[in-house]
C-alpha cells in the first residue's frame, strides 16, 4: 500500500496536501513580520491552525517557558492570546490573507464559555473549522475534559448544535487510552480528531531542586515523542471512523508517511518548525517524492 499523499479532505475541508501546523507552533502574523511576503509565496501548510484563543485575553505564564531536552523541548507557555474580541478584530483578517483554510483553536473552562467561543468564531466566514483544545480543567467538575470520555462527549454534545462547521478535537496523550476519548468525541459529534498534544513533563534545576519552568510543569514535544505519538495515532485511527490528524515529532516526509500509514489522513508539524521555519513545505515535498517513488 502506498501512503496517501496529495490532496486530502478533512471533514469536508479540501486540502491541497496533507501537511498542517500544530496549534501554537507557528504564528503566521509574526512570521510575516520576520520573513515578509516570501512567507505567502510558498506557505508551508495546507490549512492554518491558529494558536488557541480564549474568551478573555491571557498574558501567558511567567518565564522561563522553555527547556531544551535531549531530542526535544519542554514548554509551558500558558496560552497567551488577545482573547476572542482581539482575535476576531486584529488577527482573523490577517490570517485570512494566508490563502489557505483557517482552523481556529479555542479553549474554555466550561461548556458555557466554550459555547460562546464556538458560536462567535464559527459565524465568521473566514473560518473553515474549529479545533477544541480540551486539555484544560472544567471549572464545574475540576476534571480535565480531554482526560475523561464522559466529559468529552458531553462537551461535544453541547457544542455540536451551535455550528455546521467541522469541529476537531485535539486529544491529549496524557491518558491511558486515548482511543476511548476519541470514540467519545466521535459519539458526541466531532468531525475529526487531532493528536498528540504535548506529553506532561518536568525539568528540575539540580542546583536548587526547584522546577526549572516558571509555571512548574510543561509539555514535551519534538523528536523525543514521535514513537509515542505514532502508537497513539495508530490506536485512535483504528477506533474511530472520523479523520485523524496525526502529529508528534514529525520532522521529515518519512515520518509523515509513517503517521499516514498508521491511519492519519493529514499530519501536522510543530516543533520542527522552530528548528526550520520552512519545515512544513520541506515535509510536504518529501512526502510527495515518497509517493512518486512508491507509485506502481
Amino acid at each position, binding site marked *: 500500500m502506498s501512503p496517501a499523499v496529495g490532496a486530502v479532505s478533512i471533514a469536508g475541508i479540501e486540502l491541497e496536501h496533507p501537511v498542517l501546523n500544530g496549534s501554537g507552533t507557528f504564528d503566521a502574523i*509574526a512570521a510575516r*513580520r520576520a*520573513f515578509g511576503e516570501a512567507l505567502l509565496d510558498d506557505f508551508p501548510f495546507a490549512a492554518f491552525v491558529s494558536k488557541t484563543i480564549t474568551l478573555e485575553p491571557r498574558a501567558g505564564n*511567567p518565564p522561563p517557558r522553555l527547556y531544551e531536552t535531549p531530542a526535544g523541548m519542554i*514548554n509551558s507557555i500558558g496560552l497567551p492570546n488577545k482573547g476572542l474580541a482581539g482575535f476576531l478584530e486584529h488577527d482573523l483578517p490577517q490570517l485570512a490573507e494566508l490563502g489557505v483554510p483557517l482552523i481556529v483553536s479555542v479553549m474554555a473552562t466550561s461548556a458555557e464559555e466554550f459555547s460562546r467561543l464556538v458560536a462567535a468564531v464559527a459565524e465568521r466566514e473566514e473560518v473553515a473549522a474549529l479545533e477544541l483544545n480540551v486539555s484544560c480543567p472544567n471549572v464545574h467538575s475540576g476534571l480535565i475534559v480531554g482526560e475523561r470520555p464522559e466529559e468529552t462527549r458531553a462537551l461535544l454534545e453541547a457544542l455540536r448544535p451551535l455550528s455546521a462547521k467541522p469541529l476537531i478535537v485535539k486529544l491529549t496523550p496524557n491518558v491511558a487510552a486515548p482511543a476511548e476519548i476519541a470514540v467519545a468525541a466521535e459519539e458526541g459529534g466531532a468531525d475529526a480528531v487531532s493528536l498528540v498534544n504535548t506529553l506532561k513533563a518536568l525539568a528540575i534545576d539540580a542546583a536548587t531542586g526547584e522546577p*526549572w519552568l516558571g509555571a512548574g510543569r510543561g509539555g514535551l514535544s519534538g523528536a*523525543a515523542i514521535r514513537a509515542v505519538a505514532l502508537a497513539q495515532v495508530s490506536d485512535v485511527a483504528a477506533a474511530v471512523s472520523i479523520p485523524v490528524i496525526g502529529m508528534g515529532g514529525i520532522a521529515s516526509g518519512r515520518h509523515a508517511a509513517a503517521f499516514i500509514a498508521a491511519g492519519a489522513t493529514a499530519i501536522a508539524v510543530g516543533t520542527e518548525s*522552530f528548528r526550520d521555519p520552512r519545515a512544513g513545505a520541506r515535509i510536504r515535498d518529501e512526502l510527495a517524492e515518497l509517493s512518486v517513488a512508491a507509485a506502481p
Partner: protein
Amino acid sequence: MSATPAPSPPQGQEIERVTAPFGRRLCDVAANRASGGYRVFSLLDGEGPEPAAGQFYMLSAASRWDSDGERPYLPRAFSFAACEALGGARRLDFLVEAVGPGTERLAALAKGEQVWVTGPLGRPFAPPGALVDGAAGAILVGGGIGVAPLAVWAEALRRAGVPTRVLLGFRDRNHSGGLALFSCSEVRLASEDGHAGHRGYVTDLLGVLLEGDDIGTAPVYACGPPAMLEAVRAMCAERGVVCELAMESPMACGYGACFGCAVPLAAGGYMRLCVDGPVVRGDQIQTALVAGTGHR
C-alpha cells in the same frame, strides 16, 4: 546635579527591520579563530540581505547537532559581531563562548563545515534621532560577550557621523575577547580584575558620564549580561535618559512561533523578544533580568 530630562521620545515606533529569506539556509564556515577566551567564527552567507545592527540569526551546525538524540536540539540565537561584503556574498562573524552543548558545538566549528542559518531576525537598534529629538550623539555600554552587536552599531554610527562614546566592561582578560571587535580608539574600559581601565563595573563609567550636562542629548545603547542591562536600565530610568537594550532570552524559533522568549513589559503582560526585540527600549520593560538564561 541638575539633569535636564530627555525630551519625550516618540512612542510605539516600529523601526524598519530587514526581513530574512523564508526558511533556513546552509552557510559554509570560512574561519574560526580564538579571541581571548572566546571564539569568532565566520560564515559565508550567499543568500541573506545585509542585516541591521542589533539583529540576530538562529544558528545550528549541519552535523553533530541533534545527533544520537542528544542536545543541542534547537538552534541558538546569535547577534552578529561583524558583516562584510565578499563578492556576491557576505561574511558574518559571530562571537561565541562555549557555555553549553550548543555553544560548545558552534565554538568547535571547523573551516569547511556548514551551519544552518535563519535570519537576519528581530528589531534592530533605532537611530539616535528616532529616540531623542535633536540627538547630538550616542553612548554605547557593553559587557563581556555582549559587546558584539555594539561593535557593529559603533561602526554604523561612525559612518553616519554620530559622535559616539563607547564604554566596555570585562570580568577579566580571558573574558575580554570582544574588545578586538572595536576598531575605534574612543573606548573607555572597565574590568572587574583591574587588568585594563577602571577597576570595577562599566556601569561606574556610565554613572560618571550621566553626571555630565549633555545627558539627554544622547541615547544609551547597551548589551551585556542581564545584571548589567538591568543596572543600565535603572540608571537611565532614574535620570530620564532614553536607552535601548539588546537582550537575550531562551528562544526556540527566533521568529515568533514558540512564544518562549517572554520578557515582562512595564505595562503588564509580556513581549516576545524575538519579534518585538531583541533591541527593546528600557522604559518598555519591567526588568532586564530575564529568567531562564542559565540553561544553554
